[in-house]
């Protein structure tokens, strides 16, 4: 076989410009990294880097401001939609998005997110659902599956006592102000491609001034799930997908004609 010289080849994929070229603090195989990559790719492809402001939350992604190569602010636990509202209303020319975990967005921040969707704030929310509180050591979150063992539900989540996991996409889709609500998953190549398209549509929603957009991304937490990264993606597919069906929960008519 003739040796290939990369100088004569075309680049099919390279590190996105909007990601800083440094090693992250995320555990090996954590899909937070995939979500970061997809957001950076979409911002690059839409040419938005110079006018984007991210809002980091509290959780493993608290440090996401270190990794995106555009402006970022950091908010208290659950308050990212409120901070994003302030940023967007004072600088409506900017593209403003929050990046939140499930513990952040639908536990301590549940009131904030429902209010932001209800107001139809013209912001975008990237919501990582890994079914636990990753940063603090894998405690039960509102999204923890029935029967799932966590450090604070060592015998498995008992729905008689702690209720059922909250379906954030279904919930937010009921809000009049919401224009684009979708759930996707990061467990395999096909679903990662679909997730990127949804992130693109969410930012298109904001660029067009259509109101609130949110993409829920089903994610792995190999460390607190006590699994290898590959087994964690299989567990996500087998256990999380049936409870959290992927799909479009709300799509503004202006978006349904868009080809991305």
């Amino acid at each position: 076989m003739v040796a290939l010289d990369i100088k004569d080849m075309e680049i099919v994929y390279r590190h996105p410009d909007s990601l800083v070229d440094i090693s992250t603090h995320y555990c090996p195989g954590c899909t937070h990294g995939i979500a970061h990559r997809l957001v950076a790719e979409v911002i690059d492809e839409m040419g938005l880097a110079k006018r984007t402001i991210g809002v980091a939350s509290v959780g493993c992604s608290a440090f996401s401001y270190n990794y995106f190569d555009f402006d970022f602010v950091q908010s208290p636990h659950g308050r990212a939609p409120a901070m994003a509202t302030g940023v967007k209303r004072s600088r409506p020319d900017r593209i403003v998005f929050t990046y939140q975990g499930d513990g952040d967005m639908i536990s301590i921040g549940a009131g904030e997110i429902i209010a932001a969707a209800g107001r139809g704030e013209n912001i975008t929310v990237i919501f990582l659902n890994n079914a636990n509180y990753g940063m603090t050591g894998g405690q039960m979150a509102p999204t923890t599956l029935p029967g799932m063992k966590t450090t604070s539900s060592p015998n498995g989540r008992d729905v008689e006592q702690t209720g059922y996991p909250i379906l954030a996409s279904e919930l937010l889709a009921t809000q009049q102000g919401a224009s684009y609500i979708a759930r996707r998953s990061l467990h395999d190549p096909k679903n990662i491609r679909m997730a990127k398209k949804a992130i693109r549509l969410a930012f298109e929603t904001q660029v067009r001034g259509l109101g609130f957009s949110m993409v829920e991304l089903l994610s792995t937490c190999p460390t607190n799930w006590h699994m290898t990264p590959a087994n964690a993606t299989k567990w996500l597919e087998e256990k999380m997908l049936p409870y959290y069906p992927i799909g479009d929960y709300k799509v503004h008519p202006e978006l349904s004609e868009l080809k991305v």
Partner: protein
Amino acid sequence: MPLRGTIVVDENLCKACELCVEACPQHVIGLNAEIITPRGFHPAHLIKDECTGCGICALVCPEAAITVYREKRGAQG
């Protein structure tokens, strides 16, 4: 004959999670036990020639560590 490709893994970024190893349809990626990265991992590398430059490894890589190259169409000899 399919187009041929190759990958370059950034050893400062790779964390040896093996998601690319699992996902590669050609089964041409493995971890390189000969190298230890600055963060203490055995990085991913090509172990066989049959890479097609499909880009699937880069799609699943959480570290954006992989650059994928492919022969230009028509360049096959």
